[in-house]
């Protein structure tokens, strides 16, 4: 920034003085740079913090009888890469009709909300990932369970019956 020269003229006469160079430096760009770097470091350090979601699987060695779950109160969810298949009831039953939806907030989330309201506390979600499913899809579904406040869910392996049902539905 321009410094106003207030020393005045004085060319004529007088003693010859050695010209004193000003010791002031314009610090503005330096301050700018400093704050820019601070902003950068602050943003990158806080954004990189990972969070975790806990996943508890059943103990395979434990043979204790667990509480039975009614087939009519379960929803089986079969995540695929871009869509989610789901059906209610027992696999292979004529009453269990495979339907398809997506991962958006109007998709599987609304299904979970609706069924939770309908069935109540005993509503159980069974997640069986299809062969095409990505890890992201599974995490998305677990997340949906957390959003819709369902604590009863299980991860199971997909069975040939499920695959057959998806194939038959043709969706």
């Amino acid at each position, binding site marked *: 920034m321009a410094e106003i020269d207030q020393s005045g003229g004085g060319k004529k006469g007088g003693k010859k003085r050695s010209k004193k160079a000003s010791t002031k430096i314009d610090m503005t760009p330096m301050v700018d740079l400093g704050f820019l770097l601070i902003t950068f*470091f602050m943003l990158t350090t806080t954004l990189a913090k990972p969070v*975790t*979601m*806990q996943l*508890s699987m059943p*103990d395979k060695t434990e043979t204790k009888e667990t509480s039975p779950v009614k087939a009519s109160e379960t929803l089986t969810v079969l995540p695929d890469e871009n869509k989610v298949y789901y059906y209610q009831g027992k696999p292979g039953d004529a009453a269990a009709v495979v339907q398809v939806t997506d991962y958006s907030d109007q998709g599987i989330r609304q299904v979970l909300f609706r069924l939770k309201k309908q069935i109540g506390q005993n509503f159980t979600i069974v997640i069986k990932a299809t062969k095409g499913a*990505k*890890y992201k899809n599974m995490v*998305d579904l677990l997340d949906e369970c957390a959003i819709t406040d369902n604590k009863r869910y299980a991860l199971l392996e997909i069975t040939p019956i499920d695959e057959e049902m998806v194939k038959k539905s043709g969706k």
Partner: protein
Amino acid sequence: MPKVKAKRQSVSLDMTAMCDVAFLLLTFFMLTAKFRPEEAVTITPPTSISEKPLPSEKGVITISVAPDGKIFMGVDDKEAQQMMLERMANRVGVPITATMQKNFMASEIVGYPAGALKQVLEEKPSAWKAKGYYQGIPCDSVTNELFLWVTYAKLANPALQVAIKGDGNSNYKVFNQVVGTLQSQNINVFQLITGPENKPRN
């Protein structure tokens, strides 16, 4: 009558103090920031609404799954790491030299078959990526080395928790395999590392 001249004031400020503060803060942030450990591959975890930070006071085994399905493992407990190397080297029959041990301790992750232990550890960790040593830990029904590494780490420190950091685009099958391996040694609680995401409003 002469015109009244408004007295001009100098517009320049003394920025020295401001500059001092800025650089003090900058130094502080730079020194306190933790460097992200060098990753063998870039892993982008999926996002979730969970807000819990990773519990790390007891030590964590981090199992990473790369987009192409390769499996890596890291332990933040130095003692357990040391033990892992000793037992694994003993198993494959490789004598450990001081260089090998130093390189193993300096590396954040294990990501190579145990058969290549000697070859890999004789190089510095910084050269591993360029040489293509990060081939992943074999984890299938024939050779399940992930099982061994985790067992050895757990032997040294049974309180170690298991965190799984999977890439969003990795296949679910690999994750299933990792979980199956861990369940077969009776580890049933996992921390899935995810990125933060905003909670939906409703």
